[in-house]
C-alpha cells in the first residue's frame, strides 16, 4: 500500500558549485582489453570470436567491434567498420559477419587487415570506452571446399565419432556446416551374412561439427543409435563429406571408403568408489546412450552387499543412469529407485562387491555389454552445504574495510564451520557442488532484507527433525515460511554485525549490545574511521596467519590489526553460519518444541542471539561456541561420521 501514499520527501544530496573536484563515475571498464579476433578464415555468416578481458554485462554497456585498416579484394581500400558484439562472458564476445558488414565491404572474397578494438557504450556514464587496439588479419571467402586427408574410425562404440581430418571444414552456425553422408550396409553381430541379405541398408546424412570449437581441420561424425541401432556389428560403405554453405550450395569434399566395427558398451570404472545419498556416481566407459527419450543406459549391479555389522546378501540391481555423453553416465543415489528401495541409504552403510554391466535400452530393444568387476561403498549420509556469497556481501566487506581480504574472510568462515561441526558428517563448500545432486545452500549477503537487523536467519520451513531435507536453502525468500507468520528472507547478514559498534555506519542500525572491543578491532580498518586493508596487506594474509592472529592487536601494529580484523569477522560470520545451519538440521531441542537452548549459558552455539555476546562470537576471551551435549549427540545421530568425535568440553543443553 505504500505505493499509494503521496507524501514525497525530497533530500538534497548535491549542493551548488564546488563540483570541480568530483571524481568521474566508474563504468567498470578499467580492465577492458582485446587479445584476439578469430577464426582467421571467415565466410559470410561466420561468427567472430573475440577474446579479451574486462567485458561487462549487457545491462552495463553495449559492446561493438571496430575494425580499421584495409580490405583487399581485387583492389585495396580503407576499412573502418563497427559491428555489434554479443556478450558471452567476461573474457569472450562474439560478432557476426552479417549482411551489413558484407555490404560495407562490397565483396565476399578478400583480406581484412589492420587494427581491432572493442568499444563499449556504457550505460553507467553514457560515454564510449575503447580497448587498446590489436592487429588482426581475417581472410574472407565466399565458399570453402572441404579437403579430407584421413578418416579414423575402424573400431568404435555408440556415440563415438568417426574423426575426419583435413582442412576447409565449416564451423556451423551462420556460415553453414560440414555434413557427412553415410551410405552402405550394417550387419549386426550374429546375423550371419552377407550384409546384402542379412544386414540393413544405410543411407544417412548427418552434421559433422568441429571436434574443437573454431578448428577447421577436424570434424566428427557421431554414431548415434539412430544410425545403426544399438546392436554391435559392422558397417561397410562410404563416407561422403561436403560443406553445406549458408546459401544452401553444397561443396563436395570427396568420398572415402569406411568400414567400422561397432562394439558392445563397456564400463571401465565407477567413481567415486564410496558414495552417499544424493551423491553422483559417474560411470566411465564407452557406448552409452540416452540422448533421446526412447533411450537409456542401465547399470546392472550383481554381487554381494555387506552391510556394516550385518550379514552379506546377494544383490542384483538395475539402476537407471542419466546420459552425459557416450563415455560417461551419471547415477544419483536415490531413496526411491532399486538401490534406495533395497538399502536404507540414511541408516545403512556397507560395501557392494561384484560386477557392473552396462545395459542399453532403446525402446524394447536391449543390448548388454561385458561385466566389469567393481566395488561401491555405501557411505554414511552426508550433508553438503554450499556457501553462496551474493554481491551485496562484497559491499558489506567494503563497509568493514576488508574487501581486499575477502578470500581470507571466506576461508576463515569455512574453517570455523568445519571446526564447529567436527565429528559430524557435514561438508561445507565454497563453490557449488558438482559431485552431489542434493545439497543445502546458505546465502551470505550484506543487509538483512527482513529489515529487522538480524545477524542471520534460517528461513527453511518448520523444524526438520531428523534432517529429512538434505536440500535446504537458507537464503532468498520462502513463501511457505512467510505463510507461517515468520520472516521470509534467510541468510547470513554481514552488514548487521557492524551494529556491534558504538558508532556504526549511517546505514546500519545499532544492535542492543555494543562492544568497545569491536571498535578497537575494526576502527583502524573501517573506511569511515580508519584505513581499509590494502591489496598488498591482503596478499600477506595466509590462513595460518589469520587462524593464529592475536586479538586485539596492540595500537600501531598494523599487520596484527589486519589479521585480527579478518579473523574476528570470519569468526562472527562462521559461527552464525553454523548456528543457522544447526536450525535447518532440526536444532535446538530436537525432541522438543524449542528453537534455541533454554537460558543463557556460556559458549553454546544454539543459544538465542541475545545470549551470544560479541566476545563469544568473536572468540575473544570467550568461546568458541560449541553444540551442547544433546544437540551434538543428535547431530552425530543424523549425520554419522566414522571418525571419533573431537575432544571438546560441551555444556549441557538444559
Amino acid at each position, binding site marked *: 500500500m*505504500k*505505493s*499509494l*501514499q*503521496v*507524501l*514525497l*520527501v*525530497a*533530500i538534497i*544530496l*548535491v549542493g551548488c*558549485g564546488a*563540483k570541480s573536484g*568530483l*571524481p*568521474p*563515475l566508474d563504468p567498470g571498464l578499467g580492465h577492458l582489453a582485446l587479445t584476439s579476433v578469430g577464426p582467421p578464415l571467415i565466410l559470410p555468416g561466420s561468427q567472430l570470436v573475440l577474446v579479451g578481458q574486462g567485458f561487462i554485462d549487457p545491462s552495463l554497456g553495449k559492446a561493438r567491434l571496430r575494425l580499421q585498416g584495409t580490405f583487399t579484394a581485387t583492389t585495396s581500400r580503407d576499412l573502418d567498420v563497427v559491428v555489434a558484439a554479443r556478450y558471452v562472458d567476461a573474457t569472450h564476445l562474439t560478432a557476426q559477419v552479417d549482411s551489413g558488414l558484407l555490404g560495407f565491404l562490397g565483396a565476399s572474397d578478400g583480406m581484412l587487415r589492420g587494427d581491432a578494438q572493442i568499444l563499449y557504450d556504457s*550505460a*553507467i*556514464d*553514457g560515454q564510449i570506452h575503447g580497448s587498446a587496439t590489436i592487429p588482426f588479419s581475417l581472410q574472407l571467402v565466399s565458399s570453402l571446399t572441404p579437403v579430407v586427408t584421413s578418416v579414423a574410425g575402424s573400431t568404435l562404440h555408440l556415440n563415438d565419432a568417426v574423426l575426419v581430418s583435413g582442412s576447409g571444414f565449416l564451423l556451423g552456425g551462420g556460415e553453414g556446416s560440414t555434413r557427412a553422408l553415410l551410405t552402405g550396409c550394417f550387419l549386426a553381430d550374429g546375423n550371419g551374412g552377407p550384409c546384402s541379405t542379412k544386414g540393413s541398408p544405410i543411407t544417412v546424412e548427418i552434421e559433422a561439427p568441429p571436434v574443437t570449437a573454431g578448428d577447421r581441420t577436424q570434424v566428427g561424425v557421431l554414431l548415434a543409435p539412430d544410425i545403426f541401432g544399438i546392436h554391435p556389428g559392422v558397417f561397410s560403405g562410404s563416407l561422403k563429406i561436403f560443406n553445406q554453405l549458408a546459401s544452401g550450395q553444397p561443396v563436395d569434399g570427396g568420398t572415402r571408403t569406411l568400414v567400422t566395427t561397432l562394439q558392445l558398451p563397456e564400463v571401465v570404472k565407477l567413481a567415486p568408489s564410496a558414495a552417499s545419498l544424493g551423491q553422483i556416481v559417474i560411470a566411465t566407459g564407452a557406448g552409452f546412450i540416452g540422448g533421446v*527419450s*526412447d533411450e*537409456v543406459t542401465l547399470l546392472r549391479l550383481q554381487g554381494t552387499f555387506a552391510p556394516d555389522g550385518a550379514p552379506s546378501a546377494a544383490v542384483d540391481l*538395475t*539402476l*537407471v*543412469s542419466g546420459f552425459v555423453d557416450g563415455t560417461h553416465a*551419471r*547415477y*544419483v543415489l*536415490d531413496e*526411491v*529407485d*532399486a538401490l534406495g528401495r533395497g538399502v536404507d541409504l540414511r541408516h545403512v552403510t556397507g560395501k557392494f562387491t561384484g560386477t557392473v554391466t552396462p545395459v542399453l*535400452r532403446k525402446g524394447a530393444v536391449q543390448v548388454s555389454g561385458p561385466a566389469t568387476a567393481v566395488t561401491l561403498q555405501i557411505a554414511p549420509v552426508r550433508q553438503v552445504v554450499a556457501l553462496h556469497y*551474493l*554481491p*551485496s556481501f562484497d*559491499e558489506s566487506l567494503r563497509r568493514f574495510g576488508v574487501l581486499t581480504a575477502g578470500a581470507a574472510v571466506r576461508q576463515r568462515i569455512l574453517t570455523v564451520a568445519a571446526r564447529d561441526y567436527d565429528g559430524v558428517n557435514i561438508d561445507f563448500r565454497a563453490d557449488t557442488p558438482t559431485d552431489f*545432486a*542434493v545439497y543445502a545452500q546458505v546465502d551470505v549477503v*550484506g543487509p538483512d*532484507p*527482513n529489515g529487522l*537487523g538480524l545477524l542471520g536467519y534460517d528461513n527453511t520451513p518448520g523444524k526438520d527433525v531428523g534432517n529429512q531435507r538434505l*536440500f535446504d*536453502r537458507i537464503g532468498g*525468500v*520462502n*513463501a*511457505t515460511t512467510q505463510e507461517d507468520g515468520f*520472516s*521470509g*528472507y534467510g*541468510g547470513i547478514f554481514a*552488514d548487521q554485525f557492524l551494529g556491534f559498534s558504538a558508532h556504526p555506519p549511517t*546505514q546500519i*542500525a545499532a544492535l542492543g549490545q555494543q562492544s568497545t572491543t569491536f571498535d578497537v578491532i575494526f576502527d583502524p580498518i573501517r573506511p569511515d574511521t580508519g584505513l581499509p586493508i590494502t591489496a598488498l596487506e591482503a596478499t600477506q594474509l595466509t590462513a595460518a596467519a589469520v587462524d593464529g592472529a592475536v586479538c586485539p592487536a596492540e595500537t600501531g601494529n598494523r599487520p596484527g590489526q589486519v589479521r585480527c580484523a579478518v579473523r574476528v569477522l570470519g569468526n562472527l560470520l562462521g559461527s552464525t553460519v553454523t548456528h543457522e545451519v544447526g536450525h535447518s538440521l532440526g536444532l535446538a531441542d530436537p525432541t522438543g518444541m524449542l528453537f534455541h537452548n533454554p537460558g543463557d549459558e556460556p559458549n553454546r552455539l544454539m543459544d538465542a542471539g541475545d545470549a551470544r555476546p560479541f566476545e563469544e562470537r568473536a572468540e575473544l576471551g570467550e568461546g568458541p561456541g560449541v553444540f551442547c551435549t544433546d544437540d551434538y549427540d543428535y547431530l552425530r545421530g543424523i549425520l554419522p561420521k566414522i571418525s571419533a568425535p573431537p575432544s571438546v568440553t560441551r555444556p549441557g543443553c538444559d
Partner: protein
Amino acid sequence: MWVVLALSACGPRTGIPLAVPGARTVEVGHELQLTVRVADPAAKLSFDSDLTDLTTRPLRPTLTPFAGGEASFRWTPLGEDVGDHVITFIADLDGAFSRGNVPVTVVAGEHVIVFREPAGDGSTLATGVDCVDVGFLVDDPAAVEVTFTEGADWPASATLASVGPLDANVHFCASAADRAAGIVPLVVQASDDSGASTTKRYVVVLN
C-alpha cells in the same frame, strides 16, 4: 534505455535536461544501481519516492555525485518494499526544476521452481512387478502451493495426484503397451499462480 527530460516546473524558467534510465526490476536484498545525468553540473540533484520512509530508514539509498553532472543512485530494497514504485529524480538549478521518474518493481526473489524429489533420473520395474509409486516434491520460494500437471506423452497407465501443496504422487501400473515400449517417461510439470513452471522427466524402465 535513457529517457531525457526537459520539463518546466512552477517558475518561468525551463528545467535543465535530466537523463534517467528506464524502468527496472530488482530483487529484495540486491542492490539497484541507477545513473542519472543532468546537463549542468551546477544543478542540485535529489530524489523522491512513494516509499515515505525511504530517506529515513537505516538502509536508505545513496545518491552520489560524480563529475560531469552524473550521479549514482544505489538502493537495496527490503522485503517490505515488494511491489511497484517510482523513484523521482529532481534537478534544481536556481529554482528551475526538472523531474525524471524511474518505475522500479521490487520482486521477492529469484522465482525458480526446483524439483527436489526424486533426485535420480529413473527406476526399473522388475519382472513380475506391475505397479510403482513415485513421489515428486518441489521447492517454490515464491508460492505456497503449486499445480502438478501431466507432461508430454503421458502414459494412460499412470495417474498423477497432488498429495500436498508442494508434492505429488504418480501411481503407475504397466500395461501391455508399456511393456512393449520398454521405457515409459513420466514428465511432471509444476507451476504456480505467477506463471513460473518447471518439469521433471523420470523414466520407468520395464524388464
